[in-house]
């Protein structure tokens, strides 16, 4: 029971991170119908930028960790979202209206470029960061196993909740969100009604990159090691999460992320750590077999 609870906590933490990345995939897919392959790389850049910003903030004289982290959070979100914006502007926008596979190939190219750029700029070795947070609370003490929830896990979950709430508010209540939903339904009609489609798509990429950068920051703090290659696997898993939840659906992306995190944590906890990725994709195939549109996706009706 204690072990189960601990895996549940670990899984939810991991799932929150996947969910934040998955939102970027699902939003972009919802609006322009492309798989943004470079999104995993944006998350990787977010991790690097957050590490650099954190070191810079502590070097300049922030002895107080919370303040340094707050600075890091904002710096990371702004700088990484600029990367997201640039990628869209340079590599995807000229391809709007091109054959369906063209943006995908372009995205794979961007992903290769960003990976190798980071490797060249920062070196191929893993970058370790000593733990920033210490301690936590003990939830339950069993005979020989203690269930603990450390501060960092609490911060990750709280931050995810705050971001999700803010994000939902933007999508449902603001004019930007309304325009985004309009573009998702019918881009041509939205542009006829005076919505600046290019601006909305840019905003979508910026928002996705912001959430991914926060995920990158969390991973840097949580695992303490990052390298230039982390974006690939995290990207695939987050995309799997988006598909699992029903691509195009925002709550679905979060739900899918949490599920993927839980599956991974439980599989590594009870079975084998080597095959955890196999388990993840196995579950995806099973879900798609029985619910082809994902868990929360709307069935798409083909009209002629």
């Amino acid at each position: 029971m204690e072990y189960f609870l601990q895996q549940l906590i670990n899984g939810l933490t991991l799932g929150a991170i996947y969910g934040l990345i998955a939102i970027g995939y699902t939003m972009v897919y919802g609006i322009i119908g492309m798989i943004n392959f470079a999104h995993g790389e944006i998350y990787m850049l977010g991790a690097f930028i957050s590490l650099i910003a954190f070191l810079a903030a502590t070097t300049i004289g922030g002895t107080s960790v919370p303040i340094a982290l707050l600075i890091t959070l904002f710096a990371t979100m702004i700088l990484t979202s600029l990367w997201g914006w640039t990628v869209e502007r340079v590599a995807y926008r000229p391809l709007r209206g091109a054959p369906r596979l063209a943006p995908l190939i372009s995205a794979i190219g961007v992903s290769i470029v960003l990976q190798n750029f980071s490797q060249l700029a920062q070196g191929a070795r893993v970058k370790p960061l000593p733990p920033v947070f210490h301690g936590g609370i003990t939830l339950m003490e069993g005979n020989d196993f203690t269930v603990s929830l450390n501060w960092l896990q609490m911060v990750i979950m709280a931050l995810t909740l705050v971001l999700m709430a803010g994000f939902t508010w933007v999508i449902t209540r603001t004019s930007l969100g309304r325009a985004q939903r309009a573009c998702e339904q019918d881009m041509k009609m939205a542009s006829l009604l005076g919505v600046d489609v290019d601006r909305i798509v840019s905003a979508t990429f910026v928002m996705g990159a912001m959430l991914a950068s926060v995920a990158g920051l969390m991973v840097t703090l949580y695992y303490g090691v990052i390298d230039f290659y982390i974006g690939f696997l995290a990207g695939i898993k987050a995309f799997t999460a988006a598909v699992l939840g029903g691509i195009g659906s925002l709550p679905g992306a979060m739900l899918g992320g949490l599920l993927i995190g839980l599956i991974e944590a439980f599989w590594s906890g009870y079975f084998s750590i080597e095959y955890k990725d196999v388990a993840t994709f196995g579950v995806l195939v099973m879900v798609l077999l029985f619910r082809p549109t994902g868990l929360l996706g709307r069935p798409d009706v083909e009209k002629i």
Partner: protein
Amino acid sequence: MLPAALRDAVLAGLVASALALPMLGFRLVDSATGLTLAGRFDLVAWAAGIVFCGRLVIRLLPPLPGLPALPAGTKNLRLGAGWILAVIALVLPFLPFADRNLVDKATLVLIYVMLGWGLNIVVGLAGLLDLGFVAFYAVGAYSYALLSQTFGLSFWICLPLAGMLSAGFGLALGFPVLRLRGDYLAIVTLGFGEIIRVILQNWQDVTGGPMGISGIERPSLFGLSFKAVAPEGHQTFADFFGLDYSADHRVIFLYFLILALALATNLFTLRIRRLPVGRAWEALREDEIACRSLGINPTAVKLSAFALGAMFAGFAGSFFATRQGFISPESFTFIESAVILAIVVLGGMGSQIGIVLAAVLLVGLPEWFRELQQYRMLAFGGAMVLIMLWKPSGLLSHREPTIRLGDPR
């Protein structure tokens, strides 16, 4: 015009410096006290300057003219180009400047040409997005390596077996997922590629894990071995033809082997496009609903394309294993799938010659810049983006309907 362009360029330069500031401006350095930062802001200035100038030039120059569109009715021209390419490929090893190195590289390019032609059946003809093509390549390679090492079967027996096994995997994977929409297929194939790699890496007893399989048997020509000393009961190629032994013989033999395999793939594709099933693939790519209402079973048709593509990847995989003599999961990463898909899409989907062109461009050219190892992949990714921006539907994208009712207008 100038002020607007200047403002644009300044803006681009500013964005570039903001982008470069964290990633280029600081370098993470491992030191005794943990991770520290080292500044190198000159790089940021360089990046901003280059982007500023580049943007200015792009704004002021007239847009790049595209390749002249191929005039209609170029079928003969294309056919001619195809034949010329085939003849060049046939005589390549005997040209005066062809050394062992060149033939070796040409062999590598041909592997990708064959993989591209195989994937073209799936992506170009049937319009199914497969992001895990390398999985079938891996299945072919490991099938050959394991069959030959466990049962001592020769390459020529293993080749069809490996193809069949790959096709079997294609059927098993395709059957559940081909009913889904295209993008779901993409992620499932991507996941499948990863699964195969993870299994190869972790199933140590069978696959040798990360160490891979080494000492894989080399192929023979009708029992003639290409080793310096023939095994028991066999003759060497050099003895049989009364030549002096040379390691080049095998290199040239492997080159012709992959050329034959690739040309067989090409011929197969060209012929099957004229058969009902080939027509059904292309029809399905264009309009699935129309096909269904005409009584075509989409799942069966897609499945056949998927399995046939996988079969050719299996052939190419066993050739790869026999050429290298050593395989490990390292050779079958996602990047390979991406390269093959890029070859198909950059070549212009469905164009057989375009695929050759793209393979030479993407695989052949970087091979010559091996010394610039570090920057090679960076340039590769950049080239993928630039070619797509320049020709979004591929280098040779002229697509003629394969069948037409009445005279063309």
